């Protein structure tokens, strides 16, 4: 009986099981369930029949949607912990303390589910432990990434555990992990920065395969900087959504204060976007790639840079000047989408750029549904945790 009431209190939020289920019989949950059904089907199909039948991967395109979206884009968008978490815990930006816990939670979930999705892409997923415990390819950039993922998930767990133990009512453990938190953050900066750059570094070994407009010896730096602005824009996006959805969890919510902080985040975003733009320009000039701009790949490149980096920057400047927090929130979506587009460009569209468009890779519905399912799982877990633990207040 005792454990039963604990379950009722902590997991079902004080409702009976029946109530809990009927409270969740809504359209969004139905859609989520539908996506998950397709996604689980794809996962099982992939495990039973292999990558060949489930995906459009080939010898020419060994990496597809799951790497481009779930890993490359996903990890960049899971950088809130790296940006806001660090600024708050390490540099004592108290103003943004309220943003820190959600930021860390989204990083934690982002990384865990990125690795979860990766399991389906690996041919022999059951050997993933080899890279940590058994056989080390010390000269591989992927080795560095694997280890950094492993360490960073532990770091996120440490940073998140105060909220977790608070929920369980274990104060001693909470205090212990709170003290550990600052050290986790220190190493988190190094580890997260290192592997965000390394994800770009992965493609350094393919100088002949990636279109010159995207290939650069600065790829790691570009990935790192774009992960920073992806992280900040995700903080804006996620706070926007959670302030709408989880209103009842915010006791002393002041819209004006919230707007002011959003504008503050926009300022940081502008600075980083500008650094990125200037480096991109240097890159273009250094490799003398101007002539490529007058081709289809060139137009596509310009769309990415002008449409999803330069334009949002200018809009953000305008929004900061006019104190328009709503515009900042909308632009944050554009910036985040731009980062996803960039990851797709580097890893798929500009990869093997010399082969005709008809022979290029496009994902199967199973690849798409698996990725969508993973996104759905992240949202559901985020919601589950936010409604139970002290993340937002």
């Amino acid at each position, binding site marked *: 009986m005792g454990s039963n009431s604990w379950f009722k209190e902590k997991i079902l939020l004080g409702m009976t099981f029946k109530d809990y289920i009927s409270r969740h019989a809504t359209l969004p949950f139905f859609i989520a369930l539908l996506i998950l059904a397709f996604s689980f089907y794809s996962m099982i199909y*992939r*495990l*039973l*029949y*292999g*990558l*060949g*039948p489930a*995906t459009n*991967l080939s*010898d*020419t395109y*060994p*990496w597809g949607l799951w790497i481009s979206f779930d890993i490359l884009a996903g990890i960049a968008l899971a950088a809130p912990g790296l940006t806001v978490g660090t600024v708050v*815990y*390490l*540099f*004592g930006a108290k103003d943004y303390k309220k943003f820190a816990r959600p930021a860390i939670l989204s990083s934690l979930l982002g990384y865990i589910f990125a690795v979860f999705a990766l399991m389906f*892409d*690996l*041919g*022999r*997923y059951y*050997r*993933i432990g*080899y*890279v940590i415990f*058994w*056989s*080390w*390819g*010390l*000269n*591989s*950039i*992927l*080795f*560095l*990434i*694997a280890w950094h993922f492993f360490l960073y998930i532990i770091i996120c767990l440490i940073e998140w555990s105060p909220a977790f133990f608070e929920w369980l009512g274990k104060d001693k453990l909470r205090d212990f992990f709170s003290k550990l938190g*600052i*050290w986790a953050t*220190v190493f988190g*900066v*190094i580890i997260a*920065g*290192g592997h965000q750059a*390394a994800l770009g*570094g*992965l*493609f*350094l*070994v*393919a*100088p*002949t*395969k990636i279109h010159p407009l995207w290939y650069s*010896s600065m790829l*790691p730096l570009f990935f790192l900087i774009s992960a920073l602005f992806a992280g900040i824009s995700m903080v804006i996006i996620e706070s926007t959504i959670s302030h709408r959805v989880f209103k009842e969890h915010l006791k002393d919510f002041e819209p004006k204060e919230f707007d002011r902080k959003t504008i503050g985040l926009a300022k940081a975003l502008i600075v980083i976007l500008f650094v990125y733009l200037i480096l991109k320009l240097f890159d273009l000039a250094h490799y003398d790639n101007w002539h490529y701009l007058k081709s289809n790949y060139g137009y596509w490149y310009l769309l990415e840079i002008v449409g999803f980096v330069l334009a949002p920057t200018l809009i953000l400047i305008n929004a900061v000047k006019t104190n328009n927090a709503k515009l900042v929130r909308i632009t944050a979506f554009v910036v985040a989408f731009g980062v996803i587009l960039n990851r797709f460009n580097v890893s798929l569209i500009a990869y093997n750029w010399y082969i005709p468009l*008809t022979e290029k890779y496009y994902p199967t519905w199973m690849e798409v549904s698996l990725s969508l399912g993973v996104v759905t799982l992240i949202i559901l877990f985020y919601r589950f945790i936010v409604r139970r633990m002290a993340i937002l207040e």
Partner: protein
Amino acid sequence: MDRREFLKKTLTIAGMTLIGVYGDSSASPQNDKIKEQNDRIREQNDRIIQDSTKSTGNIANRRNWGKYEKVKEFPKEPYAVLVDLTKCIGCRRCEWACNEWNKNPNRPLKEFEESKDRSPSVFDRIRRTHAGEFTVVNRFYNGGTPVYVKKQCMHCAEPACLNACFVDAFKKTSHGAVLYNPSLCVGCRYCMIACPFDIPAYEYYDPITPQITKCTMCFDRITEDKIPACVEVCTADVMRFGPRSEMLKLAYEKINNNPQRYINHVYGEHEVGGTNWLYISGVPFEKLGFPKLDKTPIPNYSKNFLFTVKVLEIVAAAPLVWAAYYMISKNKEKKGGDSSG
């Protein structure tokens, strides 16, 4: 259901799926004749694809790796194969011999030999290596004359695949061969991204134990004083096998003795730091599907990066640790101030 039956069933489904996909993508009904031709090519390709799906359970990898672990004699100098493209007649006997030796899916020798005279033929498309197909011969045209080009692992002196592998599943042997260890591979396929020659292929249709497949330079033959199967079977004297320095010398002898016949370039002498397969040709290599590569070994790109990251991480650690101490002491001060005040 036992394992074999399970795999068999899986492969049947896999093969059917692929044929379906293939049929959709290659249909271009412009007129009846082309359509008929396409059908015939498709039939031929389907057979290849169906065969290649059976390559699940590739044994060449394991056999060669086992050999590598046991081998005790190491040559003073790595071996190399010199390929003289001006001599190749496109008989594809090397493909057949490779399949035969490595127990890859194979077809009668006659089918290989006649493909150069047939129309349509496998030469109509530029092919690459696939699972269970360690080497392929492609046909290019220079003016009106066909030039046949054998393609297989180049066995780089500093292999990109080896360096890319995060579980260290590749080895460069002192014989020159680059070998793959299937008992370590996790299946990330980063080696396929890294290889500048697009050689490693993957068994996508094996759900449980897929492997990378590629040419082993017949390691299990060259360690027993035999020459690679493809070299042995060639009757047109296209390939020569021997110590790399001798092969290079031979290449330049050939070029210098007959400058009209050859261009002055030994492909693989310097490309990505040198390879253990060397090519000489009468036609510039760019026209024959060879990637234009400079002397930088591919591993250098990642090594430089890894070095930078390590240095930066160590350099960054110091101020960050200092900041952490600062924050902790500041927090303590505040707490102390609170309790006293």
